């Protein structure tokens, strides 16, 4: 790499962000070098400044951010001090961007291929007709199904993984010198992620494009990057080539990142075979309107135990939860609570029946009303379910805050926007506990959180389970989480249960082929993992996996 020409040089980059009418420095003097054809991984937790730095390498800042110091040089061009019109001639043409959510970053009003050809057209690189032909060729190389026609659909007509590849194709449309990949696979299922990772790696290699690959997932960056730079709150922690970094991280922070996913609570004894389960899902089928989405699903959840329901998006995980809570009455089958059937519709359930099953949501941000104080968020369910009022209610709310390890005197009167992501999720847990339930559904509760924070949440949930004898249904697509906290595992695909059983059994071969596909798709820290896996599966196999989900 060292002999390759230097493409990007960033020196002493400082960026400020505006919050509450004050400018705070969020990037504190970063240096960055990128050679032609090289892939640099930027890694860190949320708030590390990864995306901000990535965008700054394009000479771009989001609204509410400004570059205050430093130089950004791209192929001899000073990106900080050129006119907006000159910068526009470089953006898209010589530096391209691939965003985290392709679904949100494609314009819903235009066909995919028209958005693809826009760049070459405005930059006068190709005619629209040439660019269309080129788009189809890129779609083929990225192994998109039906490359001749897929571009002529609107973004909402194409799946997330396919859109993400179409966006990579769009970034390639002008054959840029460099592409910024901003968490391009974070929103995807593990099996889809592999296809996108492989596609990105291939195409970057084929065209010798330099790339900055931004992610919070170490195992992913290990597959993609030649060099890795670790960031923490706008500062560089360390930088090294990928193999060195993985084998011998120097800094404590890097080691701590490497070492997460170690939480392994002691296993629980199996439930006595005669015990009546807290929740029993029996032969449940359900449909949205006329479209059936769930077929004959059955499993039990026992007191004090955790059942993890895993599967890709669209597998019906969340629909099962909607059936159990009564939000979506099943078309067939029933839900038993301690052996007695629950009314299918939540409106027909008694307050006590409602109290027994609570939910914690994925996005604590949107699940908490930002204009209501914590005292009210927790006080309302306390009053509704237990009838406590006034001073008693206050004492109960304070006790709940203590249970989730948040200081009552500090947080009682705060509003959700003043809390961090992990704290908000803790409030979500306390709100579920306020009802004093026997059973809690955790819907992807850690997937929006950084790993260290997520581990704290898992520890808390485990402690509460042991103290209160709670039964959990854990909906997740993250198999690392399953490995650490589940007692039983239910694997779902296309609305059916593919395989179910105690965790140790599920994680030892032989597996059901689909479970195997899921398990083998979880990226590992080994930089050769993706290469080996692809070799093992063969390229056709990946194509099959893609078409199987169509």
């Amino acid at each position: 790499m060292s002999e390759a020409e230097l493409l990007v040089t960033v020196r002493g980059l400082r960026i400020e962000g505006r919050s509450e009418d004050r400018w705070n420095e969020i990037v504190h003097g970063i240096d960055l070098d990128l050679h032609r054809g090289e892939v640099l991984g930027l890694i860190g937790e949320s708030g590390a400044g990864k995306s901000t730095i990535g965008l700054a390498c394009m000479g771009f800042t989001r609204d509410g951010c400004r570059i205050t110091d430093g130089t950004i040089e791209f192929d001899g061009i000073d990106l900080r001090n050129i006119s907006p019109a000159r910068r526009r001639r470089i953006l898209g043409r010589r530096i391209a961007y691939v965003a985290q959510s392709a679904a949100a970053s494609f314009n819903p009003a235009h066909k995919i291929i028209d958005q693809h050809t826009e760049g070459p057209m405005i930059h006068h690189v190709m005619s629209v007709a040439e660019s269309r032909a080129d788009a189809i060729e890129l779609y083929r190389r990225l192994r998109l199904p039906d490359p001749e026609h897929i571009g002529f659909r609107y973004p909402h007509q194409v799946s997330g993984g396919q859109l993400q590849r179409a966006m990579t194709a769009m970034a390639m449309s002008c054959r840029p010198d460099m592409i910024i990949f901003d968490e391009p696979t974070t929103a995807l299922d593990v099996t889809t992620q592999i296809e996108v990772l492989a596609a990105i790696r291939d195409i970057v290699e084929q065209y010798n494009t330099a790339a900055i690959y931004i992610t919070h997932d170490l195992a992913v960056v290990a597959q993609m990057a030649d060099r890795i730079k670790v960031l923490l709150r706008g500062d560089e922690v360390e930088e090294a080539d990928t193999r060195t970094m993985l084998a011998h991280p120097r800094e404590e922070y890097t080691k701590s990142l490497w070492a997460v996913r170690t939480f392994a609570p002691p296993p629980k004894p199996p439930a006595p075979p005669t015990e009546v389960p807290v929740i029993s899902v029996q032969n449940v089928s359900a449909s949205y309107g006329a479209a059936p989405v769930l077929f004959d699903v059955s499993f039990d959840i026992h007191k004090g135990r955790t059942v993890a329901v895993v599967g890709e998006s669209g597998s019906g995980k969340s629909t099962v939860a909607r059936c159990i809570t009564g939000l979506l009455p099943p078309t067939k089958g029933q839900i038993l609570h301690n052996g007695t059937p629950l009314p299918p519709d939540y409106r027909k359930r008694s307050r006590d029946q409602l109290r027994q099953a609570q939910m914690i949501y994925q996005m604590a941000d949107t699940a908490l009303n930002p204009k209501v104080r914590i005292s009210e968020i927790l006080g309302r369910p306390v009053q509704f379910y237990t009838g406590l009022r006034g001073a008693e209610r206050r004492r109960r709310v304070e006790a709940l805050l203590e249970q989730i390890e948040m200081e009552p005197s500090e947080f009682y009167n705060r509003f959700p926007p003043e809390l961090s992501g992990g704290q908000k999720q803790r409030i979500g847990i306390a709100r579920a506990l306020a009802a004093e339930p026997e059973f809690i559904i955790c819907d992807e509760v850690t997937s929006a959180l950084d790993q260290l924070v997520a581990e704290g949440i898992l520890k808390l949930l485990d402690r509460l389970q042991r103290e209160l004898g709670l039964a959990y249904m854990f909906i997740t697509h993250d198999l690392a989480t399953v490995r650490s906290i589940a007692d039983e595992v239910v694997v779902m695909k296309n609305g059916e249960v593919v395989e179910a059983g105690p965790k140790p059994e599920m994680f030892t071969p032989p597996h059901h082929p689909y479970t195997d596909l899921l398990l083998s798709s979880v990226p590992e820290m080994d930089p050769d993992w993706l290469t080996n896996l692809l070799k093992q599966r063969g390229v056709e196999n990946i194509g099959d996996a893609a078409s199987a989900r169509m």
Partner: protein
Amino acid sequence: MSGFGFDLLRLIAKRLGLGLITLFVVSLIIFLAVNLLPGDFAQEILGQGATEEAVAAIRRELGLDQPMVQRYLSWLGGALQGDFGTSFGNKRPVAELLGQRFLNTLFLAGVAAAIAVPLAVGLGVLAALYRNSVFDRVANVATLTSISSPEFFLAYILILFLAVVNPVFDSLSNVSPDLDFWTRLQRTMLPALTLTLVVTAHMMRMTRAAIINLLASPYIEMARLKGVSPARVIVHHALPNALAPIINVIALNLAYLITGVVVVEVVFVYPGVGQLFVDSVKIRDIPIVQACCLIFAATYILLNLTADVLSILSNPRLRHPK
């Protein structure tokens, strides 16, 4: 695609049905409201000194002595067949009196809309493009001033500058069917401009707000990062996604152009529905008042229906289902 066409037709049919029900309810309200107006036609034309017998005789002649329910039913029955009754004042059929005037009002509204809609959307797009600039503020203040001023005041100002000081247009809009298009347009111009001043602000501000609302979207950022120029970002990437709210506010304002023209027509003596409406209320010429109200209500309902359908058509998710 065929399923979508079917869905759309079903939707239109459903909205039309709802519109008819609304129209029926409105007809009931109109009838009751008009009949609750103090005084009636007989008293109004005979004046204070009329004898009981004379008033009763006229009432009998016009059918005002019948019970209200019966009067409503016979009015509704006639209206359903296109017969709105005869005017109390000059005994001519209401349909004949209204017909030409309604066409005149439509012409005025059409001219005003042809100026106001492109102007408002254009100004809105420019204001969004140059948001928070001097242009944005001037456009905002100017349109707000014009919407906040009483219509008759705007009308007299326009007359002063465009008819008296610089005699470009006629201050009296004396149009009749035998005029050629250009003369007619020239005579309609001042009321049309007045109406334009009244409706532009609302549409412009909605266009600006709907576009700016979208500028934080990831796909707008994506367009910028592809090197797309600011003008193209607004027109090509933001505007197509902002159409639904813009269409709705345009429909609302078009309805206003037809139903809200009373004052403007009076100022310019424009022979439209509004003029006739005001004259008829004065003399309690109930059949005309009722017919006018019904036309206004139908206009509102039809325009809103059109706006609904167009907003749906502007959404690619609904136009091209999976």
